[in-house]
């Protein structure tokens, strides 16, 4: 048996049922050793998911979390060279396992996004006092590279915040109007804020390259002259305060 065939057999033994494992590797003790690798493979991946999704584990409880993790592992063998990416897609598995509890998948998505932002690219946020004197109509914003947006139909943000602070979480409930989750990293700390859909769309538009003048126009069309301009200004002020903006360029600098 050449090496490639041996390693394929070993892989099957790891991901499959240890009782069906190929035992022709060696002597009678090979099955014993293979069972250790078979078990260690799952234990390590469950531990990895538990560490990444700490608040989800607290929300579901150890037993339910482990069962969900084992389903995910059986369906999603790891491909990346780092365990740091193994949490990708766990929210999809949970959405299927908990179709009547949408906060479960949303909590998984939130924790995964926070985890990604933890090791995402560094960037220096623009302080409000350093905002340049520019022509605002043509101003375009650069955002931190760790910025991520997701949808929230439940009070998942409140659940995560309470549990992280060691407090009793609120009961899960659906929001009256679907909202969004904004995730980014401030210095070295992952952060998030629950935002309304208008702000989510505004961020998407600004990231796609529209100018601040165009954002104001869109808000004015929606809310009227005075309120629209104020809303766009409030967005900008909040983004600067959050440390979401790394640069502002006007026509002269683009």
């Amino acid at each position: 048996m050449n090496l490639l065939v041996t390693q394929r057999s070993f892989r099957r033994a790891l991901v499959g049922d240890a009782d069906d494992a190929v035992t022709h590797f060696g002597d009678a003790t090979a099955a014993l050793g293979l069972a250790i690798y078979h078990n260690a493979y799952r234990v390590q991946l469950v531990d990895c998911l538990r560490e990444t999704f700490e608040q989800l584990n607290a929300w579901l409880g150890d037993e339910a979390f482990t069962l969900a993790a084992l389903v995910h592992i059986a369906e999603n063998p790891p491909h990346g060279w780092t365990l740091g990416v193994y949490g990708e897609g766990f929210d999809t598995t949970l959405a299927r396992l908990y179709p009547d509890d949408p906060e479960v998948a949303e909590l998984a998505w939130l924790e995964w996004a926070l985890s990604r932002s933890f090791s995402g690219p560094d960037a220096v946020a623009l302080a409000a006092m350093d905002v340049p004197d520019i022509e605002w109509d043509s101003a375009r914003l650069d955002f931190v590279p760790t910025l991520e947006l997701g949808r929230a139909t439940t009070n998942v943000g409140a659940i995560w915040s309470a549990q992280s602070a060691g407090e009793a979480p609120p009961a899960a409930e659906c929001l009256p109007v679907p909202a969004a989750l904004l995730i980014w990293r401030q210095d070295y700390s992952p952060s998030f804020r629950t935002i309304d859909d208008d702000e989510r769309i505004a961020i998407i538009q600004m990231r796609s390259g529209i100018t601040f003048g165009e954002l104001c126009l869109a808000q004015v069309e929606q809310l009227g002259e005075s309120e629209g301009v104020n809303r766009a200004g409030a967005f900008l002020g909040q983004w600067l305060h959050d440390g979401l903006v790394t640069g502002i360029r006007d026509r002269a600098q683009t």
Partner: protein
Amino acid sequence: MATTPLHGFGLGLRPPHYEEFLEGRVPVDFVEVISENFMLDGGRPLHVLERIRAIHPIALHGVSMSIGSADGLDPAYLQRLRKLVDRIEPAVVSDHLCWTRIEGFNSHDLLPLPYTAEALDLVCTNILRAQDALGRAMLIENPSSYLTFGQSEMTEWEFLAEMTARTGCFLLLDVNNIYVSATNHAFDPVAYLDGVPADRVRQIHLAGHSQGRELLIDTHDQAICPSVWSLYQHACRLVGPVATMIERDDNIPPLEDLLAELAVARDLAGIRDRVAA
């Protein structure tokens, strides 16, 4: 920031001890880190590592290169590792004699190889490619294992000797791994130590293990046992003064406990008074 040869006695950098290392008051000669934990785009871990690099020489120890993969190395992995090497300028870069990945599947475990001529050719090809990509010689660590292959044509130490001769790589000798494998597969650990090319050993690992139901498990969650200390002493006699570090990955005790174990290593190596400033 010039790289310096690895020497003396070191510890692994683990999150519970970050602050003490950052304060620069941990009396070690070097710090070892798991490469993959820092092959990141950015964030706090890299920042911490750069600050510690300003205080201590760094040993980069990898777990995912998979030099035993029959389908070769992952170019993206090598590129990432090279980027970290260029940024940190470590004293040594090491990984394991094992395979972790095949055809896109990654087990994230250090899986054993059959010690055949075919595997030797493959491992040597992969090491030469990795060394080329990294621009330096690597250290390769002997694994602990829970099974052997009937198809093996040589002992693990014969495999290591031939591997170093063909590739110019060095050895990271894990004394605990030798003890665990020797117990599990009923070979003489002293014969193993006597069989490896002593002049290629550049670093030694010490660690604890656990007794499984039938086999020893390389858990890195216990203190180093007397039998491993005894083997370490024998290794020191064979290879002379060589950088030694203690691996502890789980059930992590206060730093003082690990420093006390490191003091034992210093004593056994016959170096009683060398403590980093």
